[in-house]
């Protein structure tokens, strides 16, 4: 079933929309969630929450790309859960989001803390512009690491690169991102 048909099921309020979504994107969503939470049960719960969110959002929302729509929902839900669990001092493996967060410290520019929604919008636009400026391979590596939270080993293997190359690319890109955000005056 293609995406348009699945979205139609949501609009028809047919519960098979969830079943078809699960068939097609269950693994995708689970991967995203598990990379963040490093916990099977938490990830499964997050994926179920994703289906519920999607059910509530469609309609009226009609996603142009169902995959990324679901991916974003899963990612946001998982990060929210991660933060709440972290507050309870639960440990997470370094290969998950903790390692990613530590790396991203390199990209945080110094300056004032963000204050309002306009800062969020500016940051999103800056990130889009930054990503657009990157060579494709660099962008894919960056997104695989910081959007999908894939491990360096996994990225290297799937792109036929050495881990060293991936690490170096990530390090350089983080540095460039920091420079870019500073230059653009974007607070993080």
């Amino acid at each position, binding site marked *: 079933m293609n995406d348009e048909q699945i979205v139609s099921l949501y609009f028809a309020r047919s519960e098979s929309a969830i079943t078809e979504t699960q068939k097609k994107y269950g693994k*995708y969503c689970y991967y995203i969630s598990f990379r963040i939470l490093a916990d099977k049960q938490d990830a499964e719960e997050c994926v179920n929450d994703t289906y519920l969110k999607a059910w509530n959002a469609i309609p009226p929302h009609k996603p142009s790309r169902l995959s990324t729509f679901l991916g974003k929902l899963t990612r946001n839900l998982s990060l929210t859960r991660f933060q709440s669990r972290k507050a309870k001092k639960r440990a997470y493996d370094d290969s998950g989001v903790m390692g990613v967060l530590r790396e991203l410290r390199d990209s945080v520019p110094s300056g004032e803390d963000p204050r309002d929604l306009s800062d969020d919008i500016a940051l999103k636009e800056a990130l889009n512009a930054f990503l657009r400026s990157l060579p494709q391979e660099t962008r894919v590596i960056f997104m695989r690491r910081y959007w999908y939270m894939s491990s360096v080993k996994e990225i290297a293997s799937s792109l036929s690169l050495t881990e060293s190359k991936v690490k*170096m690319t990530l390090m350089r890109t983080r540095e460039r991102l920091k420079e870019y955000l500073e230059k653009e005056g974007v607070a993080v």
Partner: protein
Amino acid sequence: MSEMRLLCALGEVDDEFIEEAAFDNACIEPEKRVIPFKALAAAAAIAVFVGIAAVLAVVNYKAIGVDTPAVTSESTPAVTDITAPPVTSVTDNNDISDDKREFEFYDVETQGDNPASGIPISYDEVMDSVYAEKLNLVRFEILERYSSEDAAKLNESFDPPFEDMYSTLYRARIEYDYLNDKAAEKEIYLIQDGTPEVMLEEKPLYGVGEKYVTMFYDLRYDRWNKANPDFTFKFEEGISGNILYQLDRWPVILYGEDGLSIGEDIPYSEQLRYTTTSNVPMRLVRKYDESLLAEFIRGDWRSRGYAFPSLDDSVFDTSALSPKSPDVEAPDNDALLVADTDTDEDINSGPDTLMIPDCKNIGIYDEYFEFEDYIDSFMPIYEDRMEAAETVINGETVLQAPPMQPDETYERLMSDESENARISSLCKITVTRLLSGEEAAALAGYDASLGDRNCTFYEGAVTYDYLNKTEMRETIIFSMRGTLERPCYGQPPYAVGDKIALVLKTRESGSDITRPFRSYALAYDVIEFRGSDYFAVRGQSTDRIEEGLKSYPHSISYSSTQTDNSVRYFGFYSADAIADRLNELWSFLKR
């Protein structure tokens, strides 16, 4: 937490980036899988070529260097001699079935990535993969393609063997040495990925009689060789000069001194040429005039300070590239009266499997240092450097040597007048021996009681002064913090043969004996690379001395030959840049 905000914000980037980075494990829809990387890469490739063509058309660009006719619908280059090896080109797939020419191989199975994926590579990146000591640019002719059985027999004599059943072995003859601009006659063994049964996409097997130009990574006559995948050209004789057609998916564009590119892109629709197989065309992306390309390479490599070795010297001993020269000769000097000590033996008996990065495993890539794979094992050290505060060696917590704060060295330097001493030189020093504290005190007049118990005393041969840019031939004794037993964290003692640079100052007494400006500041490890020296900053954070200089900012660690303690670097700088900066400061001090 700012990084969490950044991570969340990344979640909201445009869908196209998310889709582009999707992958098999995460992208479930079968028909979707073709979308993300390869298809977009192919589209990007087409777009790039179309874009280049459009730009060239708009600016009425005329590439220099190739005597080329106007682009026509004829896909075979018009300059190609009719006596050249048969080459058929096609403009679309329909032509394949109409081609009645006989090929060596038909309906070959292909494998490998979509050739349009990947990214363009620059000339500088190509150069990064070349060892300056092993340069070559040669033309070779395929003499014989070995059957798999013959290849297997030959393979027994190779060291290392090529244990790849998906390769094909050839006998080839190097017939021209472009660097030395003279004919050659050297037979070599050559391997190529692919077999008569299975070939890589757009990588047909070489045909006997075909000629190619390449730079071999490490040309050896006693083993197999492989053409540089990023810099190989198909050679064809031309009426008004020989033409080199660059293979592979992306052209390496060379720019002359006037900023114009040398050579000419081949239109996308004309890039595929059928040579030895009926269904695996070779992609030729750019063409060059042979003599102009060779002239460019010679000039460029000369400007990089490379010497052009003879092909007769092309059996290299890679161990000669080790930065630890075993036969460092210390110049004559009275300070060398100290007899050998047991310490020297200790130096040489240390673990030596992991050496200082040298030109074998360190290169410059896009203003960064690039490390080869086996440095991988040290990356976690780099990544965790902020967390790692202490280390235990041989059951003992090592002496902590907190890095100097930024500006501290600078401030000390600026107030140096008050110490009645002055900077005199930035010297390149080769460590020639280690001395006991007592020996050093007796010979050089150091007061061993002045906190030097935690120091190691070295004797070094001074060979160059970076500030005055003069050769030197002196010996000094100097001390640096840390001992074999109690090394400073991140600053293991030096070994004999290590090359370092120290800022020296004249002692207040006015005697000739110099000593480091400060024992662990303004001291650099010297990495010699392609005829230039680079300074690696040890165990200190970036100082104002280096501030603003073009840096190679990767911090790495590696094991010393001395102890388990790893060196920690906080930056890499050009030696000249550091010297210029110090000269500026010194000029200021003298005012």
